[in-house]
């Protein structure tokens, strides 16, 4: 395949969703079919990238224009986006949503794709801002007062973070005369601090990402699945990309990876609400992606598949409270889907969560190992809560066919993605995750099952979130200057 073909396909993968999204306002009848076509197209494009493994920089509109960088890393992230969008689409297929919903879904899909290929600060800024707007409209689709507040809070925080990001971009340009990611090598520490504040907040990382649990847990099930599976990674991808391109920022990215992995999992083990636990756990998994940037793409793919499946399943469970769920038996097919997904995320062999975890653990630096192992242990403790829920014949459980289509796609993806890193299956590699899971379950039964620790939620109020931003900025500046 020649470079020009790739260039054309890349532009198509970004522009077609936007074009289709706006055409849906004119032709609302074709909403689901057009959205399906767009999802399939970017899925095919991503597979092509993974298969041919190019590494091509595309420069549009001459100097100072838009810079795109297409490689296998983008391929993994775009594939995640395509599969999650398709699953959400199948889930919503017979749910009587208006064309407006699908239009936003498709526009969001295009912008997320754009964020996964761009290689300069300003194209990224534009992609991120449009992602915020489309996400806001999807969160508030239900039009209730609560979703309105949740959406407004999300938009406010992400826009404030992006203002800091813009200042950082200006400082970078002043120092190096270019907006490309690679110009970060010559950027002053304050520029890197400001840019990172924007991306960390947007990506839900560490303390500045504490807006995430409420937003992801209080949205509707399909929107939560989309946000946690694909959209949140728009903040993660640039961090991974910068860590790979610019060796100076690599330690900073790894450090925040470990920090957020531990923070998220710490909240997740104590949480008694299914969706909030999943949301906190998303924070922790994003830490795994950042902790080993070289292999972050594969981890992001498995996390996107499994987390959106879990959010969709959590949406049809009879209750959100884990205490109540222990009393109410779950319909066996739903229970088995829940258990398969939980096994994958705990790193059990035969599912791709295992390969991703082994690969990440192999690429850690020595100082990260202890922290990440503790985080992996926390993961198996928190998912023991799901695995040991009782199956049984629930009386009134009607599930739409679309639900099974979505779950089949996501869990099937998990099994197929196993092949990406089949070298992981050695005895030494297999024993460690099994030991981690066993220890996690033991701790769950001995300690965490009885534990009723309610962590305070004050840090999640709006003003504290903004305050944390300024503190993170100071911390980043110190870390950058050191």
């Amino acid at each position, binding site marked *: 395949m020649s470079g020009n073909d790739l260039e054309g396909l890349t532009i198509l993968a970004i522009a077609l969703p936007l074009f289709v999204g706006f055409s849906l306002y004119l032709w609302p009848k074709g909403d689901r079919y057009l959205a399906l076509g767009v999802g399939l197209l970017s899925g095919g494009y991503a597979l092509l990238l993974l298969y041919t493994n190019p590494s091509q920089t595309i420069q549009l509109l001459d100097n100072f224009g838009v810079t795109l960088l297409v490689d296998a890393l983008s391929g993994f992230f775009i594939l995640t986006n395509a599969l999650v969008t398709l699953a959400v689409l199948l889930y919503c297929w017979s749910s009587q949503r208006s064309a407006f919903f699908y239009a936003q879904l498709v526009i969001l899909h295009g912008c997320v794709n754009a964020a996964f290929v761009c290689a300069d600060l300003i194209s990224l800024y534009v992609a991120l801002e449009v992602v915020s707007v489309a996400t806001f409209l999807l969160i508030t689709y239900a039009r209730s007062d609560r979703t309105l*507040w949740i959406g407004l809070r999300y938009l406010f925080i992400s826009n*404030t973070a992006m203002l800091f990001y813009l200042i950082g971009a*200006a400082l970078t340009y002043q120092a190096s005369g270019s907006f490309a990611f690679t110009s970060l090598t010559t950027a002053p520490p304050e520029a890197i601090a400001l840019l990172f504040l924007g991306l960390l907040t947007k990506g839900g990382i560490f303390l500045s990402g504490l807006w995430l649990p409420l937003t992801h847990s209080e949205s509707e099930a399909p929107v939560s699945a989309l946000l946690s599976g694909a959209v949140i990674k728009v903040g993660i991808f640039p961090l991974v990309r910068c860590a790979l391109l610019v060796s100076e920022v690599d330690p900073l990215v790894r450090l925040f990876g470990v920090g957020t992995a531990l923070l998220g999992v710490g909240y997740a083990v104590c949480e008694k609400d299914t969706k909030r636990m999943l949301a906190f756990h998303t924070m922790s998994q994003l830490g795994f992606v950042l902790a080993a940037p070289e292999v972050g793409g594969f981890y992001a793919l498995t996390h996107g598949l499994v987390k959106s499946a879990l959010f969709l399943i959590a949406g049809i469970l009879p209750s959100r409270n884990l205490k109540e769920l222990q009393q109410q038996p779950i319909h066996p097919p739903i229970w088995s889907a829940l258990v398969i997904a939980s096994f994958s995320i705990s790193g059990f062999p035969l599912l791709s969560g295992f390969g991703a975890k082994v690969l990440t653990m192999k690429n850690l630096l020595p100082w990260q190992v202890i922290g990440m192992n503790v985080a992996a242990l926390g993961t198996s403790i928190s998912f023991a809560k799901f695995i040991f829920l009782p199956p049984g014949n629930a009386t009134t459980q009607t599930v739409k066919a679309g639900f099974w289509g979505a779950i089949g796609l996501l869990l099937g993806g998990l099994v197929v993605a196993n092949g990406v890193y089949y070298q992981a299956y050695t005895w030494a590699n297999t024993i460690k995750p099994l030991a981690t899971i066993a220890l996690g379950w033991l701790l769950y039964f001995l300690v965490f099952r009885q534990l009723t620790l309610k962590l305070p939620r004050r840090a999640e109020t709006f003003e504290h979130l903004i305050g944390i931003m300024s503190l993170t900025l100071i911390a980043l500046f110190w870390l950058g200057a050191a």
Partner: protein
Amino acid sequence: MVKTFVSITILAGFLGILFKKNVFMKVIAMDVMSTGVIAYYVLVASRTGWFTPIVSTTPKGAYADPVPQAVILTAIVIGFSIQALMLVGVMKLARANPTLEIQAIEQSHQP
């Protein structure tokens, strides 16, 4: 000198977002902050000169840098559309919470 004023504008906006009690005022404060950021880009652009960078046969003197200007034009459009969207959201929110006090809103939506 100009840089100091720009910094003060950005900081004032940020402190407004942090300390104002009313959601509407917070949105306005965010606008102030974004005005500061835009002004900063204009400042960066004027490092090389003051003249509007338009191609002509006779050079007029030191031209301003067109790149930051072009960039911030995009950011202004995005900024004001988000601002508009947020104000609509706040108006809708005001029907249930007429005072728009942030603490009251957060308490009523705490799960």
